[in-house]
């Protein structure tokens, strides 16, 4: 068996996951992981499944596209090559970076550029920009894995400097504080 990764993007409506999973089931695929989210009424889902060796990604993509065309979804299917996790991140420190401040273009770009420069990996990003100067309407929350071999002091200093330039309030905290306070 091999693995395939299916990406589905389009306007959200009832039946998208039901259609994708039925077609995968009909083609003897077995779902391993699914993640989906909805942003401003747009659905986005990623499905990872094991599939028969002789099922080509292209054929599966065509079938899914046919099956989901009434629902107006865009489908992308690829074979998933086996890969090992990067050992640099095996014992990385999970850090939460949160910013609040006036909306302007390029906020995500300028913050992530620094994160990337220090070799840290964004594992989750939630960003809401409703516009205007009210900091509570414009929030970015990055969950970042920072390799222990990295330079946290340098990263934090650069992030704080950039936040000041952009007039953002920034908090940089180890993930454990949020888990300790909010989860039993």
């Amino acid at each position, binding site marked *: 068996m091999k693995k395939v990764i299916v990406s589905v993007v389009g306007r959200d409506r009832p039946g998208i996951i039901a259609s994708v999973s039925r077609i995968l089931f009909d083609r003897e695929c077995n779902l391993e992981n699914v993640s989906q989210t909805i942003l401003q009424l747009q659905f986005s889902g990623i499905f990872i499944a094991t599939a028969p060796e002789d099922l080509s990604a292209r054929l599966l993509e065509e079938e899914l596209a046919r099956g989901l065309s009434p629902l107006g979804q865009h489908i992308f299917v690829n074979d998933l090559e086996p890969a090992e996790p990067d050992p640099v991140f095996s014992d990385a420190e999970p850090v939460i970076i949160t910013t609040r401040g006036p909306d302007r273009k390029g906020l995500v770009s300028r913050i992530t550029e620094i994160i990337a420069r220090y070799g840290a990996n964004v594992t989750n990003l939630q960003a809401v920009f409703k516009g205007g100067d009210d900091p509570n309407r414009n929030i970015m*929350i990055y969950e970042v894995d920072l390799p222990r071999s990295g330079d946290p002091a340098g990263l934090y200093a650069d992030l704080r400097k950039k936040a000041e330039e952009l007039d953002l309030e920034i*908090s940089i905290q180890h*993930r454990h*504080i*949020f888990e300790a*306070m*909010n989860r039993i």
Partner: protein
Amino acid sequence: MLSEREILSTIEMLRNEHLDVRTVTLGLNLFDCVSHDLSRLQENIRSKIDALAQNLVPLCNEIGDKYGIPVVNKRIAISPAAVFAAPFSAEEMVSVAKTLDDAAKSVNVDFIGGFSALVEKGIAKGDRALIEAIPEAMAATERVCASINVASSRAGINMEAVYLMGKIIKKTAAKTADHDGIGCAKLCVFANIPEDIPFMAGAYLGVGEPGAVINVGVSGPGVVKKAIDRALEENPDLDLGKISEIIKRTSYKVTRVGELIGREVAERLAIEFGVVDLSLAPTPNVGDSVGEIFQSLGLTAIGVPGTTAALALLNDAVKKGGAFASSHVGGLSGAFVPVSEDLNISDAAASGHLTIEKLEAITSVCSVGLDMVAIPGETSAETLAAIIADEMAIGMINKKTTACRIIPVPGKGAGESAYFGGLLGQSVIMPVRNLTADNRFIRLGGRIPAPIHSLNN
């Protein structure tokens, strides 16, 4: 993956509700420093504190930064000095206090507590020397805190010690008259003193404690107040049972912060983690006040009728939520009502809503006692002792800790203001009845017997 709500509510507590770890206190057993030679004892104390506490402050700051939680105070609590310095005179005890002060400054901690004696059943030679040294020791040092346990539920109240402490508090105030008697702000008289308090001025390390231990004092009155405000805004008909649930949940979160920070500090210092003290400790800042919680609960001010019931609810809910959040809870674990350290409480005293008698009453359901209460300087030692005796009786009978940290402000009378500065704050001087009246009861001395431990009515 954390939810946006989990992250933002935590950050809100830190940025706008004054959530912090109020103190990480390193308990150090100094019994192995003993010597009949004073200079040898002092050298041993310096060496031990330097060796074990030199990393405390930078480490607390580092861990505070890591989690984005300020560790406001770093402190040391030591074995009772009256025991490890028992052979010495009062004058020599003052030298010991100065050594402790120097050692505290050398490792950059805010306070060092444990200039203490336990005299609930009798006063030994070292105890008397230490008590007599207190006025000079409090005047000559900045960071040393003293505590004297004069009563317990098992021993009763040592009335000789109570009267003695009335006199000592007067002398301590006189020695620091230039600063409104601030020496008394570093001096607590206790009933049932716990062995693991991280908060000052009562912190000391009991004889049953490990050689070195980290105890943590959490805070969070602002967080509790905001949680109540938010809940009542969403549902103005919320009843007290439901408000109690909200306080419990909030206390859980606050306590988890203390537990996380304390355990990491202990692990990094390779010493034991002791307890989290679940106390709501205010500061003289708006939004970081225990007094404001009473107003959120619908009272005009702390001190008006209903205060005792509200405090009973608050204290119990804090303990229930906190006990679930921590594997080891100890210390004082009660809402503090330090008059000068809480802007709202000192305002309630100034406006006449809060009196000493009401303060005393509320200590029967919680809180630690008459804490940071400024009273007229002319209050006699006998009246001071009588106030202490009343407070000790509440602790003794109710099997709880009570304490007195009262400041007879030299040269000032009721209605004037006393200024202590910093976290110690400022307060109106509260009126005391029978300021200088004769009090034969106090002079009778002896020991009020321990209470019967059944027939609990």
